[in-house]
């Protein structure tokens, strides 16, 4: 009998060995290494903005709408429904968010309205995909079109008659308040302006994360662990995820698959709607037609980037937010400094491939790229504006190409499901 029990234990440990686990120590180490490289690049180039408090604050703010859309994608796809309609739901969120805040004279009413607006889009998606079994992509595309068509129509009905409003925009919206640890602001600014190696960078990061953070941002950030808790630690979440993995198994245990799919897709719409509401209420303080600018699609990409996990998608959104903040604030200079960071990262990766994985050829290729990037960095002093404009996109692409991770989507994601089809 003792022999009987023996095998499963090593089996489990070998399974653990196979899956590279990212725990907080690895994350912390990575963060420190990254800050170190950024600091070097900053000192070498004098591009002080790459770790300034302002950049980090903007990065966080820019990550929020993308992250919320990505969370929306997570909810939906974890329940097995592909949601390419995030953009449309986000558009609804921008309009309804502004409308709610203006109509009820309360930004939080706007937040709620934005969520509801997005949720309506989600509901439509759920009806089409879950009840009618329509191809998820088609339904998503249709919702994007509808979002784009309905909001200007609504503006003509509602905003035109308001002072300051028009056919393409709402009147101004009063945003919810900001919070910040006021006491340390001056001290951090002092540290930052010293431009000391590593110290100023750390001060910049801390200041960016502690000063003038919108309450809505805090809510949005909290939604990430909350989603994780709900989806991975509760009975509700287990059932919801089982619908995205093997709906027939869920059905055979009495789980109402349709119900969970509906809840997930509506929640997905609500989250995307929140992302839209953030744009109109906090980021811009106004609704403008077309202000989402494709962020719903970027959110979808961030979710895939993050391997259908809350932590992963949050880092995807932050990466995008950070690089976008860089290029918007001090475009040419900052992105030029970023080239040095990329060169360093590639070099480090080459060393890892060589020493850690013994993949000589891959290491060589990576090293060649590292040198190439470095040469470009050394021979230029700034990056043309047309190129900085796609820094976030290229970075995302680069990280994905390097990481080459075996991303794994929920097993039944995108597959039509009909009750009683179990065999």
């Amino acid at each position: 009998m003792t022999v009987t029990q023996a095998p499963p234990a090593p089996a489990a440990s070998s399974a653990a060995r196979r899956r590279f686990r990212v725990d907080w120590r690895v994350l912390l180490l990575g963060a420190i290494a990254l800050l170190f490289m950024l600091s070097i690049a900053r000192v070498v180039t004098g591009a002080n903005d790459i770790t300034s408090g302002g950049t980090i604050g903007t990065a966080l703010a820019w990550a929020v709408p993308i992250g919320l859309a990505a969370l929306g994608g997570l909810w939906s796809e974890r329940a097995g429904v592909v949601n390419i309609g995030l953009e449309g739901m986000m558009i609804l969120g921008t309009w309804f968010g502004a409308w709610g805040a203006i109509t009820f004279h309360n930004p939080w009413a706007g937040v709620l309205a934005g969520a509801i607006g997005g949720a309506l889009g989600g509901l439509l998606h759920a009806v089409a995909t879950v009840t009618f079994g329509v191809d998820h992509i088609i339904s998503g595309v249709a919702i994007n079109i509808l979002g784009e068509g309905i909001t200007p129509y609504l503006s003509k009905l509602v905003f035109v008659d308001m002072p300051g409003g028009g056919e393409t925009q709402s009147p101004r919206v009063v945003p919810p308040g900001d919070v910040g640890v006021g006491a340390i602001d001056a001290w951090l600014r002092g540290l930052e302006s010293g431009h000391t190696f590593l110290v100023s960078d750390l001060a910049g990061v801390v200041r960016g994360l502690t000063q003038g953070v919108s309450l809505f941002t805090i809510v949005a950030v909290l939604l990430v662990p909350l989603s994780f808790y709900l989806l991975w630690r509760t009975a509700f979440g287990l059932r919801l995820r089982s619908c995205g993995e093997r709906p027939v198994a869920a059905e055979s245990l009495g789980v109402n698959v349709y119900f969970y799919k509906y809840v997930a897709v509506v929640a997905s719409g609500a989250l995307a709607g929140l992302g839209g509401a953030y744009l109109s209420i906090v980021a811009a303080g106004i609704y403008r037609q077309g202000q989402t600018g494709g962020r719903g699609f970027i959110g979808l990409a961030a979710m895939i980037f993050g391997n259908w996990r809350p932590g992963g998608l949050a880092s995807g959104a932050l990466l995008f937010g950070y690089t976008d903040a860089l290029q918007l604030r001090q475009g040419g200079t900052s992105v030029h400094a970023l080239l040095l960071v990329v060169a360093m990262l590639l070099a480090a990766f080459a060393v890892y491939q060589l020493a850690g994985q013994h993949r000589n050829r891959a290491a060589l290729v990576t090293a060649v790229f590292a040198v190439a990037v470095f040469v470009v960095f050394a021979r230029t002093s700034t990056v043309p504006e047309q190129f900085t404009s796609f820094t976030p996109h290229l970075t995302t692409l680069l990280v994905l190409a390097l990481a080459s991770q075996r991303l794994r989507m929920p097993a039944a994601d995108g597959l039509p499901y009909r009750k009683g089809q179990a065999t």
Partner: protein
Amino acid sequence: MISTSTPSMPATESATSPAVELEGITKRFPGVVANRDIGLSVRRGHVHAIVGENGAGKSTLMKILYGMQRPDEGVIRVDGRPVNFRTPADAIAAGIGMVHQHFMLADNLTVLENIILGSEPRRFGIGVDFAAARRRIKEISDAYGLGVSPDSPVEDLGVGARQRVEILKVLYRGARILILDEPTAVLVPQEVEELFDNLRGLVREGLTIIFISHKLDEVLSVADAITVIRRGTTVAEVDPTEVTAGKLAELMVGSELPSPETRESTVTDQVALAVRGLTVRAADGRPVVDDVSFEIHKGEVLGIAGVEGNGQAELVEAIMGMRPAEGVVNLGGRDISSWSTLRRREGGIGYIPEDRQRHGLLLEAPLWENRVLGHQTRRPNVRGFWIDRSGARADTERIVREYDVRTPGIDVVAAALSGGNQQKLIVGREMSGEPAVLIASHPTRGVDVGAQAAIWDHLRAARAAGLAVLLISADLDELIGLSDSLKVILRGRMVADVDPAEVTPERLGSAMTGAGPDTPAADASVALAEDAPASGRPGREPEAGEEA
């Protein structure tokens, strides 16, 4: 009738009252009447077997009892009380549990998650109490000797372990009435024996078991009562002590059971396929197929026996060029190791894949396009760059005729055919173009007796004409009956050669689990309980292998 006895009561005189009664159940599907006025009465504390041919309506009846399907007509009584199940949740609440014919497990979730799904122990109202769940699973697992570790992902488990997880799922919900739909289909005899031990234990505790199987000897050995279903209706209630397997088969299909016996040897001395030192590695570098060598001659059927997941699938895929491998594969004297799958197929290898729906068919494509699949570079399907529609269609017609594929036409999509007919189409396709070698993985799995006999006939005829066949099957009778020689695969290695003329399924089963005379350890019980070979990643623990 007194049926107020609490379920937890051990088997006493109340064991004689029916735990489940089905009366006049009728269920119609579009075009098919799956169940027609079926009656069934299962006594408490009994193992009640249900037998019947493919499509007889057994699974449908059980799904009705489990609340997954709603009957069009009829009454269900549990413990004497009429019930009306809307969803499986209702049935679960009434103490019914079901292990389905096909695994109902989510691969990406852990064992624990799969088990508690739908009846999660809670903490603070919404959070799952994982500690409690783990404890409970451990308790049950220990009590019935199921040996399941809660935190491993299901994808890492072998079929045997998966089956135990399925049973745990049911026990976890405190079911007093267990429905087991073909639980033994994928198990080797020893695993079956172990399962039956478990079942007997459960019955002693007062549980009631409804058991479906196509393996009549099993049924006879374990059941307390047997119901035979034919074309949707009950045709007989028999006492296992008073009936033979042959009689039972006759009741089921109205005719005698076919046998896979091969008559005279047709083996020649020309080597058709030679494999030398073939090694396939998993992503982490461990060998899944380990230094395998063999030869198949023209006119020979080489059978490979082994518990599922010991490298058979990888071996086949390596021979087909679908996954990278070290070693040499020779086809008719030519080294084809570096050839692509397509070239190997063109070179004369036919392939009946294990999973016909995933690897063998385009379910949403018409039959004639499925005829082209895998032969898309050869006549009569193509002419140069172009698909030859009329040629392909004509040849599809031929296959449908010769292989008795029951279909209204060749423009019907493959999904509309029943499993057996899909399989006949694949066999017909792979036999066309006069292949020199046929790789046949589970050629008759899930196929009913008639179709099974037909497929066996085709294999025998082709063998007589000089075809070399590599046969992989979990059906030991088929393996023994068709093979000219037999090899046993364990953890990716060929561990034994067996003479099919002499071996019995039981002895073969022992060899397959590493407990046979050809492996060092001979203690059957140790080898049986040992889990590793049945896992999805054989060869993962070579040390354990040596130890066993």
